[in-house]
């Protein structure tokens, strides 16, 4: 891959230090929640860190809702689309999603591949991200148009790319996580590691851990495939409610830090930051 290719995408993204693609194969395992949490945690990792989050789930965008940005419009400037900032004037958490472009939130986006490809190219080349330390990309399930398009358009910045694979403990999810891993191998995308989400449930009444979706399968897969295991996150119903709530103000970060998942996730984010900074040197 020519790392010097001068495409509009390359010109925009050369100012982004690290691009982290969150993927899973299986639907509903928590890609969007983990992308949102990763963006929030990376933002807190340093007082000056600048983060972007790009939602390329074109037919089922969740990021606007999860970050409390439902209904925000995207503005056009002479230098491209202005992302929506989840933290207002601090402007350290920039978001872009097709959800911001819809007139009504219940409008379905019925697009075939070429239209999706064009939209993704536009997201990568026309959004005024500015300088970013990390750009987190939330992807839809599967290994199809969106994923292939992402990899094609970002080929000129391939050295900035890496992936995080998310799974839940069930066999059906692990099966698709394997397919996702095969995809990353086929396109030579380095994998930072694997996260097992919804792993065990701590009962709010008696504190007993019950295995709603069983547990441990992700760790086992990581071991077998020689991947780094980034950690497991238990089922946390407060997190679901928080990400559903669509707070308008940037209360989210403070509230997120009060969930039982936040400290667990902070460790995962730290590990990601460490791995990426090792890569830099």
């Amino acid at each position, binding site marked *: 891959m020519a790392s010097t290719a001068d495409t509009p995408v390359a010109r925009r993204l050369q100012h982004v230090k690290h691009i982290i693609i969150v993927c899973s194969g299986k639907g509903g395992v928590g890609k969007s929640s983990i992308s949102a949490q990763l963006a929030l945690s990376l933002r807190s990792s340093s007082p000056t860190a600048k983060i972007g989050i790009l939602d390329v789930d074109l037919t089922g965008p969740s990021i606007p809702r999860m970050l409390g940005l439902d209904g925000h419009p995207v503005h056009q400037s002479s230098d491209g689309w202005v992302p929506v900032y989840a933290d207002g004037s601090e402007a350290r958490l920039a978001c872009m999603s097709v959800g911001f472009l819809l007139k009504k939130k219940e409008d379905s986006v*019925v697009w075939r591949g070429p239209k999706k490809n064009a939209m993704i190219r536009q997201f990568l080349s026309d959004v005024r991200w500015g300088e970013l330390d990390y750009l987190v990309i939330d992807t839809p*399930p599967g290994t199809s148009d969106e994923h292939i398009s992402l990899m094609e358009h970002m080929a000129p910045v391939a050295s900035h790319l890496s992936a995080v694979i998310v799974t839940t403990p069930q066999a059906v999810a692990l099966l698709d996580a394997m397919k996702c891993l095969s995809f990353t191998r086929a396109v030579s995308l380095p994998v930072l590691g694997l996260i097992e989400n919804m792993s065990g449930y701590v009962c709010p009444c008696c504190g007993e851990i019950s295995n709603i979706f069983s547990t441990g399968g992700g760790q086992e897969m990581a071991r077998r495939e020689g991947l780094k295991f980034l950690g497991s996150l238990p089922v946390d119903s407060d997190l679901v409610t928080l990400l559903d709530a669509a707070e308008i103000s940037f209360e989210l970060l403070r509230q997120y830090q009060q969930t039982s998942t936040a400290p667990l996730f902070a460790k995962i984010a730290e590990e990601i930051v460490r791995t990426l900074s090792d890569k830099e040197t």
Partner: protein
Amino acid sequence: MIAVQQPVPLPDALQVPSNAPEHCPGTQSELAGKADACAGCPNQDVCASGATRAPDPAVPLVRERMATVKHKILVLSGKGGVGKSTFTAQLGWAFAADEDAQTGIMDVDICGPSIPTILGIASEQVHSSSSGWSPVYVQDNLGVMSVGFMLPSSKDAVMWRGPKKNGLISQFLKDVDWGNLDYLIVDTPPGTSDEHLSIVSYLKESGIDGAVLITTPQEVALQDVRREIDFCRKVGIRVLGLVENMSGFVCPNCKNESQIFKPSTGGGRRLAEDMKVPFLGAVPLDPRIGKSADYGISFLDEYPDSPATTAYLDIIDKIKEQLEN
């Protein structure tokens, strides 16, 4: 200036071939083959000749195969991981419990097929005969087709863009020897994209009875299901009803019920009311459903007395009622 973009309205999308450029005017349009967007499109000659205003050659073949299928049901959601495949499997098993009924399950989730695993037939292969590909049978009256039966290894990723997926779906409809079926249930991937457009455009002429929509209680799922209902309306598919899955968690020890995915905006029931679609019922979260799926055994047969089984059977009865209307 606000950069609002509107997606192409759907009647066009159904007429846009999967290899057409972004601004294709639609093959049935007056401008087909002549619009600015058509320059360089691989279909330009065909479109300009007017041939595309005639139907797709696969359509009559599909119609012929589907002539012996009584009811065609889509299982849809918009949101991922809400339990579409699990529900499809339970529906299949429940229909097939009637020895006189023939049921088929078609899995059009090409990138993440779960149906073979859930039905316990993951190691099977598809065989072809003179009358076409034969489905894999779970039992005499329950046949299944999935891309999962065609991969050399379950680890293989299917990295296909739209056109290839559409090609396979048309083959599933015209080349599979489904035989006489009372029910054909179609499990779909999340979203509203190539797979959905293809299945709808191929089956439209033969008639789709309707779609069962699956959701979970939280808003993040509901918002995608609203979009899916909008999709059904745009393409003219009847919504048989909405099922809320993973509704509450009944602890196996103390029978205490807790809400893991809280219905912060009223859940599936409220959505069904708001969007004026029938609410079919709620299935609780039960760890044994996930385990049964992983081991490929029928939850309904294994745990006949569980509240989830009662809920499933209730819902399935309502679907049958809807089909008779």
